[in-house]
Each structure stands twice: as C-alpha cells, then as structure tokens.
C-alpha cells in the first residue's frame, strides 16, 4: 500500500537484500534525491507530457555465473494534460525469462507537492510461460495534471551486447538525456548514433572500468507525418561490444562471424534423421530431378504454405525439422532451416539474406550489429528473386515490402576443400518495379437506359502487394467467410454497399505473381449522378475511387517514404445517352509528373460513337522522395485527388 511522505532508507535496504556485490556495480545503490526538487517546465503549445530526465546506464560485469548487463533507467515525467495522466497512470515493466528486476521504484509528486511512494506491495505480476516474459505492472495512484512521475528500474540481463538500439526521442520533448556505458577495462564498445543523436564518447578508465557517455540537454518531440515512417527517424544509439582484451578477441560483433554461425545453424546442425525427413518430404510433394529450379521451389513453397503453419511459440521439443514435418507446424526459425536445407537438397542455388524492417530500422551498411539481422529471407540469384519462408501470404518473388529498398547481409556458401562455410556480403535489396503491383480499374457505364441511375460494370485487376493477401488465402476461407469477403469486395469495387454478386478470377496462390486477381461486378447506382433539374452531373472522377490527398499547406518536415512502387491504370468508358449533350470534358485531361518521371498522373479522353473513353495512368516508381522533391510529389498526389472531383454535365438536347 501507499506510503505517503515516507522516506525509505533504500540504500541500506538494497545492500542487505539484493545479494550482489555492491562494490562491483556503480549503480547498485542508486536512488533518487530524498527531497525531490522538480521544476515545472514551460509547456509550450500543446503537450501531454514532458520528459524532464531520461538517464540510462548500462554496466557490464563478469560474475561467477556469467557475463551480465545491468540496465538502469531513471526517468522523470512531467504530466501536462489529462492525456498525460491517462498515459502514465499505469506502468508496465516486462522482463524476459533470464532477466531479473533488481529494484524498481516509483513515486509521484502531485500538483500539490505531496509525495506518494510506491512499494512492492502495489505491484501486480503477470506471466507468459511461452515467451518466457513476465510482467510487472502497477497503477500510479494520485496522479493529476502538474504531477511529476519518477521511475527507477535496475534490471539484470544476459547476453545483450551484439547490437541493441536505445531511442531517446519520442513524441514529447525530452530533457536531460544521459547515456552511460560502463564495462570492465578489457572490454571495448562501439556506438552508432542515429538521426543526429550526438556521438557517445569514451570518457575515462577508472578503477578497472571503462566509461563511455553522452549528455544531451534536450531533444525535441518528433513530429510524425503521413507518407513517412517515424520509428526509423528517431534519435538514439546502437551499441555493441567490439573487443575483448582479456581473450584477445577483436571484431567481436561482426558479420563475418554471423555468416559462419548462421550458415552452420542452417545447414550443419541437422541430424541424420532431419536430413532423411527432408528428402522424404521433397519426394512426397512430387518434386523430381527433371523439374527446373523454379518449378521445384514453387512447388515446395506452395505445398508448405498451404499445408503447414508457422507458429510463434512451440514447445522446444517441436522446434526441430523432424517434428516440423510431422506436426506440419513449428516456429519461424525451424522453417528457415527447413527451407535452407531443402533448397540445398534440391540443388537450387541460393543465398540467405538477413535484414531489417525499414519501417522500424534502416539497415546500416557501415555499422555491423546483430539488431540489423531481424528478418530471414532467401535470394535465388539465377531467378533474381527473393523468398520469405515464414510469410504465408507471399510467394517467391515477393517479400514484405518493408524488407526491400533496404540493405541486407547476403550469406553464400564458401567451399574450401571438404569444408563448407558461410561468407557474407552487404548488398541492396531492390524494391519491386511499379509494374509488379498494380491496381487497375476498368469501368463501363451505360447511361443510355436510365441516365440518372446508370448501370455500371466494374472490373478491377489487382496484382502484387494489392492482391497478395486475397490470392494466397481466398481458397482457404470457409463458405461463410467467402460470403463475407465477397460482400466487402463488392463494397470496395463499387464504392458502396451493394447486394450484387461478384466474380473472382485468378484467386489462387498459383496465380499470384503471374496473373492479376480480377474482380467483376455490375450494379445500377445512384452514387455517381447528381441531379440539377433535368441536367445530370456525372461524377466520373469518383470512378477511380477515393484518393489520398496532400491539400494541407503545412510545411513538410520529413522526406516521403512509401511502402512499395505501384501503378494505377484506369479505363473508363461511358456510353452517353443519345438525347443529351455533354460538357466539361476538357477538365478530364491531366498531365502532372516529377521531372525524372518517377511519379506521374496523366489522363486523356476521347468520344467515339457516343462513348466517352477516359484513360488514366498513375505511377510511382520510386520509394523515397526527398524534401526538395516534396512539392512536385504533392502535385502528383493532388492531381489524382483533383481528378477524383471532376464531373461532366449532361444537358438534354433542345
């Protein structure tokens, strides 16, 4: 329970209870000031909270049971609004299985200056025996606007030195940032400061310890913007161990090492039984030697992705290839190994690719650290295609767009005599061309019967990232689910709820990457016509669907980064009623393009045999557009949004 204004003699308590050698850890007895003296910051504009202090100290120590990291976090948060109260009145602290919370302290100084301290009795615990994580969480009583929340945690961790990112920038301003790393004097660390975060510098060696640190007065709040990702642009630091003078090891966190060990993990760690099981599996799928590499891998991939399941956590007894094949399910890392060995068994030339999700962290070509190696992919050089073994909605040639337009570590086999090993090289993972991901509309409008409620035949062709999910999963839906999906497809295609039937073509995984998914439906609709006396205002532009817009004039702060290259081709044919004159057609012509042609919106029209034919092409064939290019990029995006608003007038002939 809460102990108001009660000051605990924490230092004494800690030394007597935590059972670690207090002399070794600089921060074993760390505590906040007995009398807090926080000053309310000047809150400019509109903030929910201000982080007045963010101190992180990492200390590495050798202990009799192993090598450990002690991670200290000390934060002071000023609560500036109701939303700040909501965001901070619950504190969650999660730790992995081998981690241990040495101490945790929380106190609130409320707006009246009363100090409320929390102790262990206020803390609830939760477990997740699968992930091995446990959670501690508590509600911070008495929090109000104008409060200060002070939190201190010390967590003991193992094995966290091959590349870890710590971010110091958030969506609120942060002040008094301190980052320290302390290690035994024979250990040396390297740092990679991200997005303008100052360099972490070696400070001193004292009492057989090395000290690195950085102090920053303040970091502004990150302003997120549409058409860009926030997380990869936040200020922070990545640290890694590089040298161990005790053992003489240098270049400790390096991709050379990773290439070897990951290669061994994938190919050399298999038991005889595993290898036998893989052979049998390949045979049972019907893969034969006379097939081409492409046929083999596609058959293999389709079979696995339609009959097997990748599961987050499986009991360790099932995390091996033999169990995977028997259970038709296992975790991602076992699937990666299965694909690697199967590719080898099928004698398909391939490389392993390790990379990041660039919407979280961009792969850095210069700084080698293991936290850049999050996703496992395969690259087939003869096909020049990538494969993602664990993503069931992709097939060869398509991987998560977030992994593309990014660098990665490519590991290939190196054979020296009888010994095979892995060797790594950093290469660029090119994004797919815009033509690979199309979302095209072919619309035929018949205004000859009832011009006020015309019949409209919609046909939408989708490929690549637009159709991947539907093409690879539609056949797996139950009848009920198909019915529901069809309803929403009708709504997507016709742009309103309709009880029409929809026809799907090429809705199978085998078609994905080869033939577009085709959706066809015909409805009579009031949605696109407006009436002004006996005139018809036909909202022809709306037939290309709702468009995103950048009408807002606010100054842009971040460059544009999109998910994938894409194309939209539209052909709209309107059979015009005989007894009407049509006007305003000239508004249908657009020609807006970036200078290098990597983004454009173009449209043209003609009338043939009383049929209005409009052709539109909109293409984005680049992922990144710089700040300087933003105005031009915006013009292209807004051209589509403007086209969307174009109407034509039909006036009854006199």
């Amino acid at each position: 329970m809460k102990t108001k204004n009660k000051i605990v003699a924490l230092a004494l308590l800690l030394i007597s209870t935590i059972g670690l050698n207090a002399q070794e850890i600089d921060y074993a007895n760390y505590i906040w000031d007995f009398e807090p003296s926080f000053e309310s910051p000047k809150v400019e504009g509109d903030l929910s909270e201000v982080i007045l202090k963010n101190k992180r100290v990492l200390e590495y120590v050798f202990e009799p049971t192993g090598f450990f990291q002690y991670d200290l976090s000390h934060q002071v948060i000023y609560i500036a609004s109701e939303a700040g109260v909501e965001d901070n009145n619950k504190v969650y602290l999660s730790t992995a299985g081998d981690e241990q919370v040495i101490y945790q302290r929380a106190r609130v100084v409320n707006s009246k200056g009363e100090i409320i301290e929390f102790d262990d009795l206020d803390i609830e615990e939760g477990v997740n025996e699968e992930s091995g994580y446990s959670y501690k969480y508590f509600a911070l009583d008495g929090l109000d606007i104008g409060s200060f929340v002070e939190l201190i945690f010390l967590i003991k961790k193992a094995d966290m030195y091959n590349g870890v990112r710590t971010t110091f920038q958030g969506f609120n301003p942060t002040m008094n940032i301190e980052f320290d790393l302390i290690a035994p004097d024979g250990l040396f660390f390297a740092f990679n400061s991200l997005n303008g975060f100052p360099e972490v510098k070696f400070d001193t060696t004292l009492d057989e310890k090395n000290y690195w640190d950085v102090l920053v007065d303040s970091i502004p709040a990150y302003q997120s913007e549409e058409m860009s990702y926030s997380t990869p642009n936040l200020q922070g630091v990545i640290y890694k161990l590089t040298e161990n003078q005790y053992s003489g090891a240098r270049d400790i966190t390096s991709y050379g090492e990773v290439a070897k060990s990951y290669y061994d993990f994938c190919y050399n760690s298999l038991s005889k039984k595993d290898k036998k099981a893989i052979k049998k599996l390949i045979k049972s799928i019907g893969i034969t030697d006379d097939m081409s590499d492409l046929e083999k891998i596609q058959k293999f991939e389709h079979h696995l992705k339609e009959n097997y399941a990748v599961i987050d956590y499986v009991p360790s007894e099932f995390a091996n290839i033999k169990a995977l094949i028997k259970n038709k399910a296992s975790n991602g890392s076992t699937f990666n190994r299965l694909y690697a060995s199967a590719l080898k068994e099928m004698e398909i030339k391939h490389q392993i690719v390790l990379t990041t999700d660039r919407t979280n962290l961009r792969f850095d070509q210069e700084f080698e650290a293991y936290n850049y190696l999050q996703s496992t992919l395969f690259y087939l050089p003869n096909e020049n295609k990538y494969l993602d073994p664990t993503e069931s909605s992709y097939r060869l040639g398509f991987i998560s767009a977030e992994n593309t337009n990014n660098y990665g570590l490519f590991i290939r086999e190196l054979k020296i005599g009888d010994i095979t090993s892995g060797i790594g090289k950093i290469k660029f993972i090119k994004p797919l061309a815009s033509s690979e991901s199309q979302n095209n509309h072919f619309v035929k409008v018949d205004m000859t019967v009832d011009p006020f409620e015309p019949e409209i035949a919609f046909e939408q062709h989708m490929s690549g990232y637009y159709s991947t999910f539907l093409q690879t999963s539609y056949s797996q839906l139950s009848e009920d689910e198909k019915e529901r999906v069809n309803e929403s497809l009708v709504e997507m295609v016709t742009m309103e709820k309709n009880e029409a039937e929809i026809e799907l073509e090429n809705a199978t995984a085998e078609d994905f990457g080869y033939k577009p998914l085709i959706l066809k439906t015909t409805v009579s609709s009031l949605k696109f016509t407006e009436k002004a006396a006996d005139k018809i205002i036909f909202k022809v532009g709306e037939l290309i669907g709702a468009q995103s817009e950048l009408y807002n004039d606010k100054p842009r702060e971040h460059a544009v980064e999109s998910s994938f290259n894409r194309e939209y081709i539209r052909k709209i044919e309107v059979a015009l009623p005989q007894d009407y004159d049509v006007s305003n057609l000239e508004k249908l012509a657009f020609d807006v393009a970036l200078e290098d042609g990597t983004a454009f919106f173009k449209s043209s029209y003609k009338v043939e045999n009383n049929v209005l034919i409009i052709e539109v092409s909109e293409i984005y064939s680049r992922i990144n557009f710089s700040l300087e290019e933003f105005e031009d990029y915006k013009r292209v995006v807004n051209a589509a949004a403007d086209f969307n608003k174009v109407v034509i007038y039909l006036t009854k002939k006199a």
Partner: protein
Amino acid sequence: MLNKRLGLMLTLFFCAQALFAQEMEDFNYYADKYKGNTIVNSLFKTHLTISLDKKKGIDVEVSEEERRVYLKDYAPQFSKSRISYSEHYKLSDIDVYTLVPKGEKYKKEKVTDFANKTEFSPGIFHNGSESMNFFYPSLTKGAVSVVKHTLNLSIPQLLSSFYIEDYYPTEMREVIIDVENGVELNFSYVNTTMADYKPTIEETRKGKRYIWRIKDVPAFEIDNDSPDPLYYTPHIIPRIASYTSGKEVVKVLGDLKDLYTWYYSLVEKTDIEPSDDLKAIVDSLVEGKTDELEKIKSIYYWVQDNVRYVAFEEGMEGFIPDAAANVCDKRYGDCKGLSSILFTMMRYANIEAYFTWVGTRDRPYKYEEVPTPMVDNHMILSYKYKGEYFLIDGTSNTSPVTESTAFIQGKEVMIGIDKDQYRIQQVKIRPPEYSNFNDSVSLKILEDGKVEGKGKVEISGFYASRMKSMLKLASTKEVERFMESYLERGSNKFELDTFWLSDISDREGNFIVHYLFNIKDYARINGDELYINLSVNDIYTNENLKKDRKTPYEVNYKSSFNLTVSLEIPENYNVSYLPEDIEFDNELFGCGLKVTKTENSVVYSMREYDNFLILYPESFGDWNIMIKTLKKIYRESVTLKKV
C-alpha cells in the same frame, strides 16, 4: 471391502470399455456433411456436478470436453490453443490430445507441455484471468483435437450460462447436470424455451441427472453492429436456489431477494466512513450551497474531474466496492470504487444515496427473470431528490447530474435501499430529439466555384456527452485535427479557417461549435448555369442492411439529425431549379428534404431520425428504402442561371 485386485481389474475393464465405447469420428461423414466449413465440433460436452460437501457446504465442478474435426489442409494453423480460467474458476484435470488419422484408425498423441499466461483484457487493468496454452501435435486434415478439463467454482453464485451454439457448427451438444438430493436447482431459458430444449431427467443414486443432447447445432451468427449475441443465441442459465447443510436450508439464489441479500453482504464489507481528506473535500464543495441538487452536482462533478476510471477486477474486489477513502487517495477506481466514493461523499453531505446494480445493454436480462450475477455487470449510484430516484454513473466523466449513460438505457437497475429492501426501476429511454445533431450553414459563392461559409453545429444529449468525453482528453492539436475532419463539408477541398468550441466542461449545456470555412471548386459552373449541391453533410450514405441478415442492428442511442443550409444567391443569378420536397417517415425512422426560396437565398432543410435502439430484420427492407431516399436527397443540386 473390495478386493484390491478386483478393483484394479474393474478399473481396467472400465478403461477398456471407455476406449471402445468412444465413437471415433468418421472423417468422410463430417467432410461431407459440413462441406465448406473449416472445423466442426463433433462433440461439445459440459458436465456440471453439484454436490453437498461437509466442509464447504456445496461443491460445484464443471467438466468440459470438446472434440473438433479439422476439414481443411491448413488445419495446422489451429495447432495452438488454450483453456481460459480465472481465480473463481480454478483449472484442474487437463487432458489434451490429438487423434491423428492412421488409415481407418486414429493414433492418440498427447499434449504434455502447458504454459500459463496472465490474460490482459482491453480496458481492464487487471482482472485475474489466466490461460493455459498448448500445442496440438500433428493437427493435420482429418485429425481430431480433444480437450478435457475441469473447473472448480469457488463461489456457487457465480455459476455461468450454457450456450448451445459455438463459433463452429456442432454435431452434438451435450449438457449434463448432476445434482445431489438436497440441492435445489433452477433454470432460466433465454432465446429459447423449455419446450425447445427439454432435458431428460434421470434419478441417480445420489440425486437427479438432467441431460440435454442437441444434435446439429449451427454456428452462431454475428454481424457488424449487431447487439450482443446474448440477445439472440439460445442459452440456459442454471442457478442454485438452495442446498441443505445438515438440517438447515442454505439459500443461494432462489429468487431476487437472495441475490440482493448476497450483494448486500458484499457491499456491507465496504468501509463507508469518510476520511478526513474526504470530509474536507465535501465540506468545501457544499459550503454555502443550500439547494440539495447543487450539492449533489458539486460532488458528482468533482468525482468526474478528479477520480479516474480504471477497471480493476481481481478477486473479491470484483464484487466488493473499494473504500471511499482509498479511492480518494488513489484518485482512481473501478465502477464500484467510483460508486463507493460518491456514496460516502453524498451520505456525508446528508444526501440519500444508494449503491445500485445494473446490467449494461450487453445483457438482455431482467432481474426477476434471471436473479443471478449474470443479470448485471456494472455498478452506479442512485440519489433521491424530491421523492424521485436519479441514477448517476461514476465512470462517465461528462454526464450531467440528472442523467445516466446511453449504455444502460431501457435496462432495469436494482437500487439497494437497506439490508432488506431494494427497488427495481427501469432506466428511461431517451427519444430521438434528446440526442440531436443540428448543423446550420450559410454559404456564399465566390469566383471560380469557390464557396465560403460559416456554420454552427449544436449537439445535445448522449451525442453531446460522448463528444465532450472524447474531447476532454484530447490535446489542442488533436482537437484541431478532429475538427478538421468532423466539420468537413462538401468535399475534401474543404478548408477549415477557424472554429470556436463551447465550454466542454459544461456538462449540462449543449455542445456547440461555430466554424468558418471555404471549399474550392464546390459550385460547378457550366456555361451560364451554376450547380450547387447543398447536401454538404451526408450521413448514412453506406448503411444498407443486408436483406437476408438474421441478426438485429443496434445503435448507441436514439438520435435525430438536422441540416439547414442557406445559400446566398449571387448577384446576376436567378434560381432556375429547386429540388422537390421528399418525405419518408415511419414509427422507427425517417427522413425528409424541403428546399425553399426567399428573396435572396435558398434554404435547404434536411432531417433524419432513428427512433430505435435495436432494429429487427423485419424492418430492414424499409430501412434500405430510407437509405435510398437519403441517397436521392444527397444527389439533388440547386441550379442558378445567369440573368
């Protein structure tokens, strides 16, 4: 005494019997009968045993067995599964395995690895729910998963309902209840009658056995905006009325009186004494106020502003309100804690206040019909003012003092008067006019089809409370962003120039926002004609309800909508066409359009109302006609012609 050897043999014999007696699933039968489905429950069995226990008085145990047949190749996707339990329903006797097809037979593969997990429910900070997670080996097409477990109920009042339907179709639903003599058990049938699902009743050695065996149960239906499935899925709510303990009859939940007695015994444990802090707060709030309602208001609003709602449902805290003094110190509480602080503060200010139980609209039950804790899920507070009982909800931070929340409208509340007396009262359902949206806009056409306008949105009732509650936590920037989209009129070329909000901390007044805006290219110029669509604010453009939908359609509250647009006729123009009036009205909903011309303006008035909380399928046809009528209204443009 039974011979040990004989006993062993008997056990073996019964085991063998059990093995052979268990009818094995015939995959072809299921694949054929349930074509198009992914999974079928071949058996879903619940076995409730209620027996007398010398120590505890009564022992309640629920054993469940669920057998599922997997019909598709991607069956392995379902390999991971779990059993949920909680501190009131303790888990034991877990037996989980896969029956893997081997030719004509099945091979049994047992699950041995179980991982416990604390479950977090959205919106509830901590609720004592846990789950046991596991992995079915070899769960391939044609396999059968079997999960058996037992839950031991620690509080007999908390006996839960039996649902007939499941997410998947069920070949055989079996519910067996064994009741020992001396236990009186009652049932409530919901969305079904005793006649539909009549149990067979057998006499057993110790008492009675009720057996329901229902074949071919369809999967339950669920749609967007349907009310809670409890409104339409058939279920049976059992309740233990009483049991004998020696010569004594112990009442549990025989009738509503028993439920109240139990509830009162829990509330009685709450410390209702005000702390010095709380007294000081109340004193300062009511100081100088003589009118009772003013006092009530000051207390309620103080709690709304200063004590936050955090759901916290662990252990008996799920039933016993936290002491007011604690809630005051912590500045947060769950619904009971908030009721508790209101209760103590009001009683200290000499106001007649009462703990009050209510089931939100998720629960379709009435107190007399379902006198078990299933009937409600929420606590509020009542106060008596001028002989009338008013209801207030501590979890709402914007409701006025005379109004409760939309989500208990039409429901019964149970007001706890004292140890023996309670009062059942129905919450009023507010008419459509109560929650009104009124938008008045004046438009002026500038050059190139650009229009400039000013508007005033005024909303009332539940609509206003919801808006205030949403904006209360938003930052200025968030409010701006929200208003940009909320006030967007005409097209997305709409630009909000500026806006002014009424005081959102004023709970009783309407929510008002005045705004100035412009929309580029909004008026359409075609030669000497100009067309302008005055339906600048469309609602329900896409709310068609499917003709064959079986589940009802639910809204948060009855509401009404009015849009008035006045267009200044530009110089040199005359009105050449005005849309005709449109009317569509019935008892449940309706809409209409009226456009008139005055000397130098056109006035467009559009209205719509929903006079229902739940709309049943028989009205869907008419509803869709209204949607079509609205679409017709939205596509009407006014035509102006150059003089």
